[in-house]
């Protein structure tokens, strides 16, 4: 928990003297990778962050989008990987808490949560199973208690996460544009710390998260208290309604050190504070501990003398503590005192702005031959294989997970979890669709094309509900950036995201970089996560019941793109091959067509074709709607391929559309006009899911049997 030698020299020369112990702690927290983004910040500037709907304000921790009629949505994504790998319940729960406070700090009410969870191979690895089970309970207990619905996410298992966990949480807020907190402060304003008490939990959490995970540093893990968080949310929204808040910031990584220095730096002010005024959980905490503790459920608020009394009354009503810890000065210094004694006195711009690095990068050696395929063992019985596939942890239904999350509270969830994307109704009559997607298997095989695929997949998911993508969140998770090969994969991902975002004019409204995701057994696969927010002006596509005789259409070509597919990795245990590549123009045409036909109300349902390929996507439709389907594999558009490739290729830009026969002609006309690759490949009916070639059933599954396996296998795996 200290600065690198050259950083210590730099600090000493910048302030012209030897730093005190408290100053060292403050700067070590703020200059950690976790807080300073020193490895990534230079490069993140390439992302497009502006757009007609984007509202930017200084000091915001979350993105803001104007959704019309005087309303805004806010969005942010965070991870809590290191803590969750040590203590999954508390780590995952406090991850939820942190991102919610980022939403709250703009003055908006948090209305939805998403979780992306990744663990080792739970089929073999008991530790992974324990991490998974407890992380899910941690998220459920926290989000449910707050009454913020967890409406979506993803769960994935891969050996690269053995003894580790990726817990990503995204949150969405909603509010009136006029109620946004316009961060400002002037000399003499008061600095107030509100919420939970400061204790010895999460000490040095941000530095802990800025190194490889080699020891189980439990004191660096924070302790969750959702009840206090709920009270803080209600108290702050009440204070906002009474205009009592001039500026606000959540206490997250780096605790008071970061909140105070970043607030001061963003607003070009100084802050003088006294650690004796901080309400603590233990009586003998020293200034260093108080400044870097990452105890949860705390907010820093700038207000003034007249408003303080009203703020205190609100806090009294909710029985939460509220301490005036300091005041605003005009000297741009962060002055930390203990009573009369100065513990730290540092220029805020020095603290808040670590020197940015330009790390070297090099294409990893493993990528040289990655696209070469090995000869695969032929599959003798695809039906049997398919049953195994449906039961596999990555393909199996995640109902065991989202069934533990209250996804109805708030009564906004019009399209529930378990579909392509969940949809929330907004107060202005519009709807918001959202989804997060990652695919480390694709990203490992090709970091650039892999992440573009995640981006497109998340877009496809919201498009399937009838929503137009309006904003993106990215969360870039990689190993140790000091390794040039890992840093190269980071840069490639970033470039991929930038290219797609620019082409589709989808601004990046928020994001996070998480590095040093490594254990002694090695780094994780590159794991960028993309979150997409989509807006629906009128009606979302509500799935209608599929009945016998309804037609199955596929949009988009199925190509020989098997690299990083579930089929290669789970069935053949082979990592390699050519990663699916998104053709931007084709992607746009297909997306627009699907939005157009949904708008014209031609469809019963639309479903994205992704993990597990066509075979899994069709089966999901059948299992969800409890009806069989006969699919002709010869009709699937694209180059001529072997049967396993047609079934399991994970080519992008593909959509499955279901419609009544009477609407077929209209769809055909529109498809021809927009020149998309399109075919009717099957008809629904019966009790079996059948994939046929040359009049033979390649796969023949009973829907009820498949559905039972698909719904129950994850629960059975966890509970044994």
């Amino acid at each position, binding site marked *: 928990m200290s600065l690198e030698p050259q950083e210590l020299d730099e600090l000493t020369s910048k302030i012209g003297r030897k730093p005190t112990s408290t100053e060292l702690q403050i700067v070590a927290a703020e200059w950690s990778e976790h807080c300073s983004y020193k490895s990534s910040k230079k490069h993140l500037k390439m992302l497009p962050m502006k757009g007609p709907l984007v509202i930017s304000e200084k000091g915001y921790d979350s993105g803001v989008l104007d959704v019309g009629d005087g309303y805004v949505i806010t969005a942010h994504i965070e991870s809590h990987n290191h803590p969750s790998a040590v203590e999954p319940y508390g780590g995952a729960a406090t991850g939820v808490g942190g991102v919610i406070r980022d939403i709250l700090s703009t003055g908006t009410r948090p209305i939805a949560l998403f979780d992306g969870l990744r663990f080792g191979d739970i089929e073999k690895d008991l530790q992974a199973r324990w991490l998974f089970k407890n992380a899910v*309970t941690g998220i*459920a*207990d926290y989000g*449910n*208690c*707050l*009454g913020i619905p967890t409406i979506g996410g993803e769960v994935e298992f891969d050996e690269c996460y053995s003894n580790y966990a990726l817990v990503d949480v995204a949150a969405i807020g909603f509010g009136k544009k006029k109620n946004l907190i316009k961060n400002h402060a002037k000399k003499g304003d008061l600095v107030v710390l509100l919420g939970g008490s400061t204790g010895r939990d999460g000490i040095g959490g941000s530095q802990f998260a800025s190194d490889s995970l080699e020891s189980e540093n439990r004191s660096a893990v924070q302790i969750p*208290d*959702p*009840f206090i968080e*709920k*009270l803080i949310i209600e108290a702050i929204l009440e204070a906002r309604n009474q205009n009592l808040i001039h500026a606000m910031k959540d206490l997250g990584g780096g605790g008071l050190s970061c909140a105070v220095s970043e607030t001061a730096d963003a607003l070009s002010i100084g802050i003088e504070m006294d650690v004796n005024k901080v309400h603590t959980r233990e009586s003998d905490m020293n200034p260093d501990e108080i400044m870097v503790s990452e105890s949860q459920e705390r907010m820093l608020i700038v207000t003034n003398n007249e408003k303080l009394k009203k703020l205190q009354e609100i806090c009294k*009503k*909710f*029985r939460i503590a509220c301490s005036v810890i300091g005041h605003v000065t005009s000297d741009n210094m962060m002055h930390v005192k203990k009573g009369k004694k100065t513990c730290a006195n540092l220029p805020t711009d020095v603290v808040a702005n670590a020197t940015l690095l330009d790390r070297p990068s090099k294409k990893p050696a493993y990528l040289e031959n990655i696209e070469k395929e090995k000869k695969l063992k032929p599959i003798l019985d695809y039906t049997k294989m398919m049953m195994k596939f449906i039961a596999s942890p990555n393909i199996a239904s995640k109902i065991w997970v*989202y*069934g*533990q*999350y*209250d*996804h*109805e*509270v*708030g*009564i*906004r*969830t*019009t399209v*529930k979890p378990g579909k392509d994307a969940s949809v929330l*109704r907004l107060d202005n009559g519009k709807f918001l669709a959202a989804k997060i997607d990652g695919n480390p298997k694709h990203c490992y095989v090709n970091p650039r094309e892999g992440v573009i695929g995640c981006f497109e997949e998340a877009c496809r998911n919201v498009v399937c509900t009838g929503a137009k993508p309006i904003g993106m969140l990215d969360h870039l998770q990689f190993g140790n950036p000091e390794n040039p090969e890992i840093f190269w994969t980071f840069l490639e991902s970033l470039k991929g995201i930038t290219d797609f975002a620019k082409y589709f004019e989808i601004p990046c409204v928020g994001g996070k970089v998480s590095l040093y995701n490594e254990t002694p057994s090695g780094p994780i696969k590159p794991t960028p996560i993309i979150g997409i927010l989509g807006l629906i002006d009128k009606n979302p596509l*509500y799935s209608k019941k599929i009945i016998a005789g309804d037609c199955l259409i596929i949009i988009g070509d199925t190509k020989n793109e098997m690299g990083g597919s579930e089929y290669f990795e789970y069935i053949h245990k082979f990592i390699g091959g050519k990663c699916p590549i998104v053709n931007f123009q084709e992607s746009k045409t297909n997306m627009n067509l699907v939005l157009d036909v949904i708008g014209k109300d031609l469809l019963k349902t639309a479903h994205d074709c992704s993990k597990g390929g066509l075979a899994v996507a069709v089966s999901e439709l059948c299992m969800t709607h409890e009806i069989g389907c006969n699919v002709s594999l010869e009709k699937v558009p694209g180059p001529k391929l072997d049967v396993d490739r047609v079934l399991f290729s994970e080519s992008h830009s593909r959509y499955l559309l279901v419609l009544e026969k009477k609407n077929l002609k209209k769809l055909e006309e529109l498809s021809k006009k927009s020149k998309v690759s399109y075919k009717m490949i099957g008809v629904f009916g019966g009790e079996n899911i059948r994939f046929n070639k040359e009049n033979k059933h390649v796969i023949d599954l009973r829907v009820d049997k498949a559905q039972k396996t698909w719904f129950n296998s994850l629960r059975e795996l966890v509970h044994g």
Partner: protein
Amino acid sequence: MKVGVIVFPGSNCDRDMYHVLTDVFKLNAEYFWHEKGLPKNIDAVILPGGFSYGDRLRSGAIAAHSPIIKDVRKMAEKGIPILGVCNGFQILVEAGLLPGALLKNTSLNFMCKWTNLIVENNTTPFTNKLKLHQKIPIPIANGEGRYYVDDETLKKLKKKNQIVFRYSEVVNGSSDKIAGVCNEDGNVVGMMPHPERAAESEINPIDNKPSSLIFESLLNTIGVKN
């Protein structure tokens, strides 16, 4: 005509309930913070769901000792319609206004899912517009939703027609599949499922009419024309 919606620290379905009462059913509703008293002109009281006091000790146990519960008790005695939903039901049980107890679900997990209720008593202020044995598609969302009563009390509940709703299937291990009960007088009703999450077509993918009838029953009872 006024409906009071009680808010405890940690209530989180209060705003949903208020929205349904006011925006959907055009009732005059008002929030009451748990430390306040209830005015005399209240015509009905609703205790919404959530995690009052973070569910510490036992769900509903601390809230049952809130100052406002004294007034709720008085109103219950006066025969004013009182509905507790989810945590509100747990609070009414902890306060002794309704019989039984709510235990951890047999799955030991929090459960959020859609299920069906069967109306077993359509004479209460919240069910008088429903048909006996009518099916209500509705979501549950709880960790401690398993209703428990001993055999003797169960017999008594049956005899006095105090079972208001049953689940159509075994959901969480509740005694006799009970999902909602009332007091002997029938004016105090508690239920684990959330009618406020099922009364609008936009958020109810199956059928919102049966849940709407719970609110229309209240309108009927307190004499407001829809």
